[in-house]
């Protein structure tokens, strides 16, 4: 239990729990308790997952299966209807399960659209959490921002506003912002979607570096199944509202399950052609 980064036990989520942010609403015991347990209305029913420290895991699955929602559950933005979540072996009861509480445990999330603060320049966007949490002196923070910008190649755009950047650049800034926080568990929502091939190829070594040097646990939600192969990590799928066992890329490529037939057909035919 000590070497776990994240553990999900029997997570259920119904559709009506999805909507809205709840920051203005205080959460109390039993506040959102529901009486109906109709599996028809559930988006995720009974997901179990254990991620070890330093492990990298890709979560795949068809569009609309609830992959991003599962990531939002992990980040504490959506509270599951049922089930328990453990961060680094520590149980957080549902009435305290908010994004702020999760973020205290150094969990970072990269949004699909970047979600940069639109009235701040790129540099201030990256500096915002560092300055808020007073992580070091101004000189140290400045150095850290520059390093993050160099890593993601957004140094030239430091003085621009997010609406002046393209979608791919916004995503790179968002990754830099998460990286600068030194997260122990990093959740990434479609990191390669919207990036060109050049930047995608640059992103993968960065993720590789993060897990090698900083021992960051990384969970990636992606359509890009080749990424799992290039990162040499396990792959699990959200299928029929539950999570499958994490297996290697080659297992899924060669197995004869429904998922493999659906999602790996193109990759298989490519392989056969080669």
């Amino acid at each position, binding site marked *: 239990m000590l070497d776990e980064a994240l553990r999900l036990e029997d997570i259920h989520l119904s559709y009506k729990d999805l909507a809205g942010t709840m920051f*203005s609403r205080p959460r*109390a015991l039993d506040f959102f308790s529901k009486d109906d347990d109709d599996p028809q209305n559930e988006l995720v029913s009974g997901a179990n997952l254990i991620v070890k420290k330093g492990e990298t895991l890709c979560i795949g699955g068809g569009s609309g299966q609830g992959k991003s929602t599962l990531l939002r559950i992990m980040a504490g933005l959506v509270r599951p209807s049922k089930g328990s979540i453990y961060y680094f072996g520590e*149980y957080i009861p549902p009435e305290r399960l*908010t994004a702020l509480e999760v*973020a205290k445990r150094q969990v970072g999330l990269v949004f699909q659209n970047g979600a940069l603060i639109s009235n701040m320049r790129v540099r201030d966007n990256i500096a915002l959490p560092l300055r808020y949490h*007073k992580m070091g002196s101004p000189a140290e923070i400045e150095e850290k921002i520059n390093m993050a910008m160099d890593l993601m190649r957004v140094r030239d755009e430091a003085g621009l506003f997010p609406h002046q950047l393209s979608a791919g650049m916004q995503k790179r800034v968002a990754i830099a912002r998460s990286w600068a*926080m030194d997260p122990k568990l990093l959740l990434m929502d479609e990191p390669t979607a919207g990036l060109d091939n050049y930047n995608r190829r640059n992103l993968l070594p960065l993720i590789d570096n993060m897990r090698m040097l900083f021992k960051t646990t990384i969970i990636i939600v992606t359509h890009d199944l080749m990424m799992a192969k290039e990162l040499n990590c396990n792959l699990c799928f959200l299928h029929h509202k539950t999570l499958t066992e994490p297996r290697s890329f080659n297992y899924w490529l060669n197995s004869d399950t429904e998922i493999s037939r659906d999602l790996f057909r193109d990759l298989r035919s490519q392989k056969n052609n080669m």
Partner: protein
Amino acid sequence: MPTNKQVKGQNLSLPGKLFHSLGLAILKRPMGQLLALFFRAIASLFSKNRSFKTDSKNIIMQTFFTGVEIFPVLFVVATLFGTVAIIEVVTMMGKMGFGNNIGDLIVIVIIRELGPILTAFLIAGRSGSSLTTYIGTMVINSEVDALATMGVDPIRFLVMPGLIGGCIAMFFMNIIFSTCAIVFGFLVTKGAIFVTGNMLNIQLTWDFLATEIIGAITLTDFIFIIIKPIVFGMIITTNACYQALNIQKDVRQVPKATSRSVIKSFLYVVIADVILSIFYFVDYMNSINSLI
């Protein structure tokens, strides 16, 4: 490891259960959530992430935004409203033979009641609605979510500066409104008298008006000049932020939330004004006793 039963709070004692259900009954209502948001915003002033430099900068920005930029409109409204009030009071009271009650009426109409209320309406219509749109758009673009996942408390980062800045701006704007209404209202009245050749037959000097008003102001008025705008400012900004943070993920909800924010601010401000006026009535009854 806690079991599910302990987590769900089933094994509370009887007083605990009563307290729990009372809390739930309060928090399930919008008014309870509004109060909770207000107290959380106040409590976030003392969180360990406080930094005087950034906070004061944010608060000054908000005060500037809420207060200073509304000044031209507020000045015009106050001057015209003061002119109308002074002319009507002076002519009507003079006709009815209550010439020595002019100061009382002007204090009641401008300083006590309509000054704070009109300032509150102007600030709710302009700054409250723009605060709702600003935070609401951030909610839609999941920027608020991003703030929370970075560990930046949205209540501290967004709501608190608005709340404090709104109260400060409301306080100063109320004083400016009353002053403008009386001083510039008097000047415009004089101008009107000059232009129309004193058609209405008004005999008005600054000495007379100032002595009357100063004689009519009581200590209660001074206390309420401070309390009323601060209470109104709290209501407007908390309500604006509450409506914005409760937007579901739908762009069409932003205009709805904005109109809700303005209308409910009006409603709550008037209700609060009535509740605060009870103190005036108590004061008035006491003075009647002493008169008799």
